[in-house]
């Protein structure tokens, strides 16, 4: 692989386009130039910083430091999952559910790939483990947050239907089954779309990156295929964990629907 390295001057030339964006905002009075400037600076600082951090972590090549980096990434992803829905399950319910689902799915999918398919030496080599965990995390986060949002908004919307089934003698599991199914489906649609579109409508990011870095396109495609399998498996696992943990938190030992454990602007109140 012979990646073409970029000099600061090369990047500066492309920065002209950002300046163009700013001019456009001024001319058309989009009032976006301030936000654009902040976002641009943030992006550059964040990426350069993470570049230094990764370089440092790769050089250390310590399993403990690698694990710590992955744990921090998972913790941030858990917070993202928790923050999306309008409803909250208690004070830390959303977070506990989001973080545990994301952690489990990412850990399993990444470990599987590292120990059976990619097999770097050692298998926890940060150069492979961290980027792999990152890309899995991004997708798993998406699936988990869709599943959680679907469950929590669905349970508020479908409360009369769920309670009608309970009142007629259904078990909680049977009464919530429709919502569980809909939530897992919703979480899996993005990855299914991504797989159908891969290579035709979009050239997936990893494959593009590998090709730019000098890899043979077919080899890059194989990597992308492996990744897609990991992403779909990880998303499904995360969605299922989220949905079942949420369902468990929404009921009690008497199989009631405990909508009172949800807090939100429009919390359901018993008539």
């Amino acid at each position: 692989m012979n990646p073409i390295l970029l000099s600061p001057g090369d990047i500066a030339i492309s920065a002209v386009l950002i300046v163009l964006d700013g001019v456009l905002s001024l001319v058309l009075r989009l009032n976006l130039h301030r936000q654009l400037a902040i976002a641009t600076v943030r992006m550059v600082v964040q990426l350069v910083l993470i570049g230094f951090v990764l370089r440092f972590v790769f050089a250390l090549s310590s399993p403990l430091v690698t694990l710590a980096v992955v744990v921090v990434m998972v913790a941030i992803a858990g917070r993202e999952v928790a923050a999306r829905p309008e409803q909250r399950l208690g004070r830390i319910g959303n977070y506990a559910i989001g973080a545990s689902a994301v952690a489990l799915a990412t850990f399993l999918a990444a470990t599987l790939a590292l120990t059976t398919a990619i097999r770097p030496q050692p298998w926890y080599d940060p150069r492979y483990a961290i980027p792999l965990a990152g890309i899995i995390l991004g997708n798993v986060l998406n699936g988990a947050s869709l599943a959680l949002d679907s469950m929590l908004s669905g349970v508020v919307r479908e409360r009369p239907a769920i309670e009608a089934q309970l009142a007629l003698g259904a078990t909680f599991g049977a009464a919530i089954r429709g919502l569980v199914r809909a939530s897992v489906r919703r979480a899996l649609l993005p990855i299914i779309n991504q797989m159908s579109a891969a290579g035709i409508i979009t050239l997936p990011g990893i494959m593009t990156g590998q090709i730019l870095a000098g890899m043979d396109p077919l080899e890059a495609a194989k990597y992308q295929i492996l990744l897609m399998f990991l992403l779909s498996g990880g998303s499904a696992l995360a969605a299922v964990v989220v949905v079942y943990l949420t369902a468990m938190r929404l009921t009690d030992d008497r199989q009631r629907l405990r909508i009172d454990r949800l807090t939100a602007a429009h919390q359901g109140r018993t008539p």
Partner: protein
Amino acid sequence: MPRGTTDATNPGEAVHIDASIARLKLAGLRSNLAGPFDLAVAPGECIAVSGPSGSGKSLLLRMIADLDPNEGDVSLDGRNRRDFSPPSWRRDVMYSAAEPGWWLDIAMQHFPGPTLTFARENMQRLGLAPGLLDSPVIRLSTGERQRIALLRVLALDPPVLLLDEPTAALDQDSTARVETLLRERLAGGTTVVMVSHNPEQAARLGHRRFFMRDRRLVAA
């Protein structure tokens, strides 16, 4: 508890129900929102509860059915609710909400197995065309939905019915039809606890009438 007491807040009520034959018995039933409630209801007896909106009438029914968190004792034919699995308790002590819920598209899909036969046979008795069962729920009027939801409950023939405003959305004729059906069930020994805004209905059906005041039951 002394024999013959039906309501701890009002010992010596006119209708005496021997506690040993009470079908449904509440003792200290309460939550942080309502109660405590004490009540013993005999087989075939109808209790009518009225009171302003938000006074806790629905809460009472929901607590009896164990749909809302609650404390205290509830028993059916002397057997404590704790000894029932929640689904089997709710099958025996069945709550019917004022606004029924639907979880499938077509009305008939809410009637599993033999209950569909019961529904088809009894639609006309409630003034409904039997074909309505094949309609999407979304196309039914509020009153049609309310009556079909009642059939859903009656088809399972539970020993205790907890009815929350069963005729709120119905005209006079439909209300009379529903009451006829309920009277038959009462005569057959079904116990009914009913919330009704309509004082005449409470008088027509209720063997004993209560008023909900400050989230407590008061004999009317």
